């Protein structure tokens, strides 16, 4: 499930209870610095993904605020401890007011 802004999010297909597993996120976004000019000399306005939040069954795991210091097509890898089966939900916003949402089910065995 995803809206507006595109992403690719990867977690292991299944994890053991208590295991710490990596979450890999790649967002499609130019992260415009506001310093670029188009062929007519007009400035391309500043527009970056300024916030990214990951929630695990409603509890925030990682909440990041970012500037143009993050490279285009932002990527993150962070680690989550598997408490219980459930949902990992992701949400991010850019300066133009566009937003992206994604969620996936986490299989916890054992």
């Amino acid at each position, binding site marked *: 499930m995803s809206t507006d802004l595109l992403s690719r999010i990867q977690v292991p297909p299944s994890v053991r209870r208590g295991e710490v597993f990596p979450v890999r996120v790649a967002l499609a976004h130019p992260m415009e610095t506001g*310093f670029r*000019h188009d062929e007519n000399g007009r400035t391309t306005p500043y527009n970056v993904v300024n916030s990214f939040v990951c929630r695990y069954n409603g509890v925030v795991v990682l909440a990041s*605020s970012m*500037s143009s*210091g*993050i490279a285009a097509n*932002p990527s993150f*890898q962070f680690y989550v401890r598997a408490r219980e089966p459930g949902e990992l939900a992701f949400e991010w916003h850019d300066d133009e007011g566009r937003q992206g949402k994604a969620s996936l089910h986490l299989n916890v065995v054992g």
Partner: protein
Amino acid sequence: MITSFQRRRRRLLAAAAAAGLVPARALRAEEFPSIPALATLLDKRELRKGRVKLDIPALADNGNSVPLTITVDSPMSATDRVVAIHLFSERNPRPRIAAIELGPDAGRAELQTRIRLAGTQHIVAVAQMSDGSLWGGTAEVIVTQSACTDEI
């Protein structure tokens, strides 16, 4: 063999450094580069050196996308964990690269991302622990081709 030209160059550089014309780039082990945004975050609180490791190439051909791994030495238990990581650049037009809060389910104090760097500089990561203490790490990156080259 040192030519007379090299000797003169060295003497000139030494004199310039003494006069403060050439910034001495090397930082002492216990020091952090002076970044106003970092000073604002600290707000006179103590920033200790250590526990934060920055894994970044020493030389980046292109500043547009430099891989970075931040690792903080922390058990990440319920009572002793990293609550936030702040990332600063010394020379980027926007020195605050990112501020990342970590929740109780973050199982390891490790984060990978890719950053932009406008030229050769130091970057600083500050980890805020659950007991309120602040720990920092720094790394220097030589950037061959800077990001934001369109900047006027």
